[in-house]
């Protein structure tokens, strides 16, 4: 608790305190309301201990065990990792699918979000309406969106292929039903919900100082040059941020793929991603130890990707004041 006394300290008392280091420490202790701070921090600290710190230690241990939830874990050393790399073809399927969809959808999402945000900066009137329309799909519950997409893109009953046929496309893709197209259908579903990334980019675009454009104008830069040499460099921190979160997110990509795969019975595992594999091993097969090992590999891959991204950023990310955090 802070009282008036701590603000209005007489100079003489101050001087005395300076001489006496013990007293100074005592005063500092008095000034920092430790009780209040610890009370306020306690929900987070307890949550951190129960739901982050302990589970991390436990899952690290369990990744070296066989554990089925009923019996206590038995130590099997590197057995889980050996199984993963040498005896589990679904692991490699899920890795391949996850890398494939990340490599295509992350750049595509960034370009598409950049384009939608950029085009939103142009109109003088009606920007809010367009922004609302573009943002709504990002709000829609994932399950509802996925269920609807599997219906709309259904080749037998969905209207999308009817449109395509009426435009003269003879054999439109079977989308979710076709292993070659199912990931593209998921990518389209993801692009539809681009709204949140777009909002961040839009804020970035609107943050670019007008004076820079005026300067570029005076130098005789055309619209493309302005975009390429003024706007884009200033947007690189935002793009970098969304690329990193995109990579982290893509390894946890679950709901859309799980729901869609359940709708169309994806026997060929074309929509079987890394997070699906962890879920199946843990909660369908009750291989908790093996699933923990998979989760730790996920963490390692995520960290490695983030680290590589951080290493490349020096080459293409421009921070206005030269620091990492703005």
């Amino acid at each position, binding site marked *: 608790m802070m009282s008036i006394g701590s603000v209005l300290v007489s100079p003489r008392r101050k001087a005395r305190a300076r001489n006496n280091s013990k007293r100074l420490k005592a005063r500092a202790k008095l000034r920092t309301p430790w009780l209040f701070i610890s009370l306020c921090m306690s929900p987070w600290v307890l949550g951190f201990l129960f739901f982050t710190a302990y589970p991390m230690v436990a899952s690290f241990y369990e990744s070296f065990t066989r554990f089925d939830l009923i019996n206590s874990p038995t130590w099997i050393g590197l057995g889980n990792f050996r199984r993963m790399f040498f005896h589990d073809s679904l692991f490699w399927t899920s890795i391949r699918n996850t890398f494939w969809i990340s490599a295509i959808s992350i750049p595509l999402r960034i370009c598409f979000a950049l384009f939608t945000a950029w*085009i939103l900066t142009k109109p003088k009137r009606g920007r809010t309406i367009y922004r609302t329309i573009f943002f709504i799909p990002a709000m829609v519950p994932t399950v509802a969106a996925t269920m609807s997409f599997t219906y709309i893109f259904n080749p037998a*009953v969905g209207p999308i292929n009817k449109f395509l046929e009426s435009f003269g496309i003879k054999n439109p893709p079977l989308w979710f039903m076709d292993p070659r197209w199912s990931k593209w259908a998921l990518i389209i579903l993801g692009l539809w919900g681009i709204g949140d990334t777009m909002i961040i980019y839009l804020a970035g675009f609107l943050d670019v100082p007008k004076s820079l454009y005026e300067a570029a104008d005076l130098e005789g830069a055309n619209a493309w040059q302005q975009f390429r040499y003024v706007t884009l460099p200033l947007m690189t921190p935002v793009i970098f941020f969304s690329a990193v979160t995109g990579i982290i997110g893509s390894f946890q990509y679950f709901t859309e793929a799980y729901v869609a795969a359940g709708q169309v019975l994806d026997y060929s595992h074309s929509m079987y991603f890394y997070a699906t594999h962890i879920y199946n091993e843990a909660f369908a097969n009750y291989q908790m130890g093996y699933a923990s090992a998979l989760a730790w590999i996920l963490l390692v891959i995520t960290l490695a990707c983030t680290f590589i991204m951080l290493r490349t950023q020096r080459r293409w990310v421009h921070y206005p004041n030269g620091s990492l955090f703005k």
Partner: protein
Amino acid sequence: MNKTSSSTNLSAISRDWSAEARKAKFQKRRRRILFGIANHSVLVAMSAVFLMPLFLIVVISLMDFQQASRRALWPHPFIWHNYLEVFQAVPFLHWTLNTLFVSVLTMIGTVVSSVPPAYVLSRLNWKGRQTSFIIILATMMLPGQVTMIPVYVIFSRLHWIPSFLPLIVPAFFSSAFSIFLLRQFFTTIPDEISDAARIDGCNEWQVMMRIVVPLAKPAISAVGLFAFLGAWNDFFGPLLYLVENKNLWTLGIGLTQFQGIHHVDKNMLMTASALFMLPVIIIFFFSQKVFIEGVTLTGVKG
């Protein structure tokens, strides 16, 4: 040269100049209008693309099964009855109430437990503050899969599965994302205001509740909103903790099991989806500003 000739010369030049300027201005305006038309037509086209799925969902939701399987493009006649039937054919109201219950409690828990840490992390100076904040940021980046299994084990040892508790209780232990968002906002409030309150004899608790919280209403509503929508849209949590007991199903789980309920027409799924989306879209329309500021402030959606 005399004065008059020079002045006529000048006026001629200025007339000439102004004619040219007018022409240039006219051209510029024409170009701007053309550009505006082009721009708006692109925007309208893109809006159509973004709205198309929603439009199709509503259209299909108003058909009967015959129309839907014929892939009709417009309901004829409109089966408004679908929107009643969905409540009779499946326990849709029950699922909605379950979802609402979880979402409201999650929202309350998140706000109540995230404001105090955010306050302490942004408005007070103490040793370890920076470290705590960095740890909080790091936990935001941690993939949920790494902690998921031991947490599940804890809840199953507590015999909390299946029940709402595993979904609600963690919300009362604050979320890193909410702390981050609130902290970002709290730091923008000038220190002088809380110092003035302290001089007037407020203790820290009072400074937080009477000064900072009222000033941070937009950020707090954003956090509440994100927490509510996060719980409303959540699928993974209910999938882990509720599936085993049909009475606890939320809308997300109910919807994925829809097809298994045989006496329901396939296209009624669109009716249910539309009803599932509707509250979210309504909430968004009324809280757009809060929402977009929240996303921009943190760079992440809930």
